[in-house]
């Protein structure tokens, strides 16, 4: 169980690590190979089965032909016997006639197939024979098997198993293997009938001629002939069997019915086909070694293997190409999405490929487009929000100052200080003119300093010159641009918190200078300064408002917030202050020329 779980985990791991192309290729190939092997094996075994059947049919056909020939041969021998009996023996009287001449004629006409023809009396005496006329002294025909069988079954013709003919005295000392055909006959002697035996010895070569050179298969098949008891009558390697150098499964084959059989003999599988030779009960046995057949199949199997390998190769190649064709658009789409994730703006999502992939790429393209529009909208909304906030912050300055100034003008006018009121109103007019700046939020630093100067003019008049102010600026700085109305709130704080209690010795210094890409405007006063905690609290937008005699630090925070909203968090105010050591507020701005400043202007600004 654990093994299968581990296998499943490995499989899942492999599956997750594999590409779509690999999965497609492997799946296609595996399915195709399994199908092909299954089909191939089915065909192979079907072919084997058909071949076996064909071989069996072929063996049966050959055996049928051999059987026919053998049957004809045996029938011709039986006809010889019939002729000898019905045309010679029956027609002659032994007392008056000699059988030998007629038997000799019969023998001569069939001498290729015959070894001898002989007639014996029922007690085994030789009555006539050809071609040899004399019996050996030592033989007793009446005890020979062929004689006894003929006497026992008088109606039949009997075929013996092959044996050496030992009856006749041969001056050449020849011993010949024969098959004896014997039958009981009725002999006529002096008109009376007596029993006897007719013996026709067939040449063994006649049977051999029929059975030899029979080609059952190209793989070493052969045919042999046995009698009903399994005794070998003919075998292509008969003498080897007789010599004990080879053996045959003849005794088992004697028990087979006609037809094809599979047998295992001496460790070899063989297909054995049996055909009974009609009258005699002999059996023709065809043997085809299956091993040799499988040797041929081995070649076939190799060819099959070659075809399978070739097909697998083609499948792998085609599947790789096909899966690549299918997955290439997906891969391109994947790459495009990765580029999108990396922040690349121009990404080609037109990946082509099948309909589904095309649809997916169109959907992603549409989604990206929608996201971009949404993001633009969000940015726009953020910008608008920022500008609105700026406007709100900016709008918090003017009414407060205007009220105080106008209050001073009223006071001056009531006290007859008309000239001073004119100066204050003139400065106030210029102050507001710069404040308006035709609606531009970005103005030159020179204007901003001028704006501060007019403000100081007004305030000095209001505070009866309790303090002096010096404004200096590097020449290159005045042409740069800044967010408008950022110095005045600082000055306001310096005056309210630093100069309000001065006795004419108050000093405010405004210095504008550039450092690299940054511009700094420092507002320093020699007022009482502030403790460190208060300094930290002034620019903290989350902190509560600072309580003081006048103001609550809102001006500082407004300026700081406006600068950061306009230029980012790296810009803004820095307050350097210590109690009794004065305060320096440093305004940190980017160095913007007119072109750069245009980028920060609100829509509709000139």
């Amino acid at each position, binding site marked *: 169980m654990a093994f299968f779980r581990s296998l499943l985990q490995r499989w899942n791991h492999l599956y997750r690590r594999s590409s779509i192309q690999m999965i497609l290729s492997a799946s296609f190939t595996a399915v195709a190979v399994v199908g092909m092997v299954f089909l191939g094996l089915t065909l192979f075994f079907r072919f084997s089965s058909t071949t076996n059947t064909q071989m069996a049919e072929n063996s049966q056909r050959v055996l049928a032909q051999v059987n026919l020939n053998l049957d004809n041969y045996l029938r011709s021998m039986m006809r010889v016997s019939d002729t000898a009996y019905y045309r010679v023996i029956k027609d002659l009287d032994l007392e008056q006639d000699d059988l030998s001449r007629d038997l000799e004629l019969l023998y001569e006409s069939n001498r290729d197939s015959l070894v001898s023809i002989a007639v014996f009396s029922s007690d085994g005496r030789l009555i006539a024979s050809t071609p040899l006329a004399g019996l050996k002294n030592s033989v007793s025909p009446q005890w020979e098997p062929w004689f006894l069988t003929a006497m026992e079954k008088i109606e039949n013709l009997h075929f013996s198993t092959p044996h050496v003919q030992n009856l006749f005295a041969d001056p050449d*000392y020849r*011993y010949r*293997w024969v098959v004896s055909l014997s039958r009981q006959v009725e002999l006529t002697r002096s008109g009376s009938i007596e029993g006897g035996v007719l013996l026709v010895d067939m040449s*063994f070569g006649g049977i*051999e001629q029929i059975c030899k050179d029979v080609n059952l298969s190209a793989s070493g098949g052969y045919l042999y002939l046995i009698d009903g008891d399994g005794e070998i009558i003919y075998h292509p390697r008969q003498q080897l069997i007789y*010599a004990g150098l080879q053996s045959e499964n003849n005794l088992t084959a004697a028990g087979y019915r006609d037809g094809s059989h599979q047998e295992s003999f001496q460790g070899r599988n063989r297909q054995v086909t049996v055909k009974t030779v009609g009258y005699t009960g002999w059996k023709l046995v065809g043997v085809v070694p299956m091993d040799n057949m499988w040797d041929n199949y081995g070649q076939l199997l190799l060819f099959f293997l*070659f075809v399978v390998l070739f097909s697998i190769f083609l499948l792998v190649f085609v599947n790789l190409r096909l899966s690549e064709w299918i997955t290439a658009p997906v891969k391109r789409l994947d790459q495009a999405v990765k580029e999108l994730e990396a922040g690349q703006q121009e990404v080609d999502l037109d990946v082509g490929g099948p309909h589904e992939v095309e649809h997916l790429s169109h959907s992603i393209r549409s989604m990206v487009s929608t996201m971009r529009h949404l993001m633009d909208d969000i940015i726009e909304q953020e910008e608008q929000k920022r500008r609105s906030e700026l406007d709100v912050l900016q709008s918090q300055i003017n009414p407060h100052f205007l009220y105080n100034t106008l209050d001073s003008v009223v006071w001056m006018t009531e006290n007859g200080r008309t000239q001073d009121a004119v100066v204050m109103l003139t400065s106030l007019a210029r102050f507001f003119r710069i404040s308006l700046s035709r609606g531009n939020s970005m103005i030159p630093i020179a204007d901003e300093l001028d704006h501060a100067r007019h403000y100081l003019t007004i305030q000095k008049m209001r505070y009866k010159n309790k303090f002096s102010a010096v404004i200096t600026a590097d020449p290159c700085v005045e042409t740069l641009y800044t967010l408008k109305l950022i110095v005045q709130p600082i000055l306001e704080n310096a005056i309210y918190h630093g100069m309000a209690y001065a006795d004419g010795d108050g000093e405010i210094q405004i210095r504008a200078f550039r450092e690299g890409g940054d511009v700094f405007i420092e507002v320093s006063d020699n007022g009482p300064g502030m403790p460190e905690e208060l300094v930290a609290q002034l620019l903290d937008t989350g902190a509560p408002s600072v309580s003081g005699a006048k103001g609550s630090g809102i001006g500082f925070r407004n300026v700081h917030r406006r600068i950061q909203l306009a230029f980012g968090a790296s810009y803004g105010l820095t307050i350097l202050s210590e109690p009794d050591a004065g305060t320096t507020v440093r305004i940190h701005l980017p160095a913007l020329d007119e072109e750069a400043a245009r980028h920060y202007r609100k829509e509709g600004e000139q």
Partner: protein
Amino acid sequence: MKRKILLQLVVPLLSLCVLFLLLAFDPGQAHADEAPLEVSILHRESDSTLWSAARQGMEQAAADMGVELRFLAPSVSNQAEEQENLLSREVAGGTDAIVLVPSDQSLLAESVAAASTQTVVITMETEMADSGAAAFVGVDNVALGEALGQAVLNGVCVDGTVLLLNSVPGSNGISARLEAAAQVLEGAGRTVRIGSPSKALGLSEALPAILAADPPDAIIAFEADALDLAAAAIQGMNPRPLLYGMGATDTIAAHLEQGVITAIAAQNEFAAGYLAVDAAVRAVRREAGQDTAPLAYTLVRKETMYHPDNQKLLFPVTR
């Protein structure tokens, strides 16, 4: 074409081409084209009819094993010198193996030893393993001689005379049989005489004189030719001595059937010939099974010669 496609297409295609070439090349064809082995058969008998059954066995083996046989026989039987020359000639001719029926193992020892260094020598009838012969195919000569001696004991009374025909003078399997038989007979109180051909007269000429000088009670011939000659020689004798011997020709069978020969010891000559060539081929191909067990022999008398097994032994199914 991309390298990847090249790898995917070309490498497997080349592999398949190699496989196809391997398949197209039929390994069996190369084996079939091999030149057949040449095996020379050197018999000691000049008369080939005496060993026709063995020859048929050899030819059967040659057909089965793809061997080309060259049969050689001396112009005069049992001539060791001529056999020696033939042996040297065959070795020089580059024959793959020689099946030798030596007439005298002592005289042929050196030649066989020399021949064994260059080719395979298989001996029949006489064992020459000491001289380097790769294998011996034949009966156990001592056992055969003893069996014949024992057979004679039944027919010859104590003090009877038994003539042992030393038809192949010299040291060989025949003499081994003779010595074993003599030992049995002498041990059992029979008188043993050895009848040998002289230099001037062959056995066929010398035998009548030997028999006439002192007719024996029994004769033992230890090989087919001598048995055949002895049978012919005693046919007219009266009383006729009992004749025993080794051999299984048609003539011998006829003499056995006529009662001229009392009993024979027969080996399956066909099997001997077959096994000799088989052993030679195995030795040349360095296959296992070169050593063959001594062949069986059977004592056959007139009464048993037509027993089915003896029919197969004495009368090979030759075609």
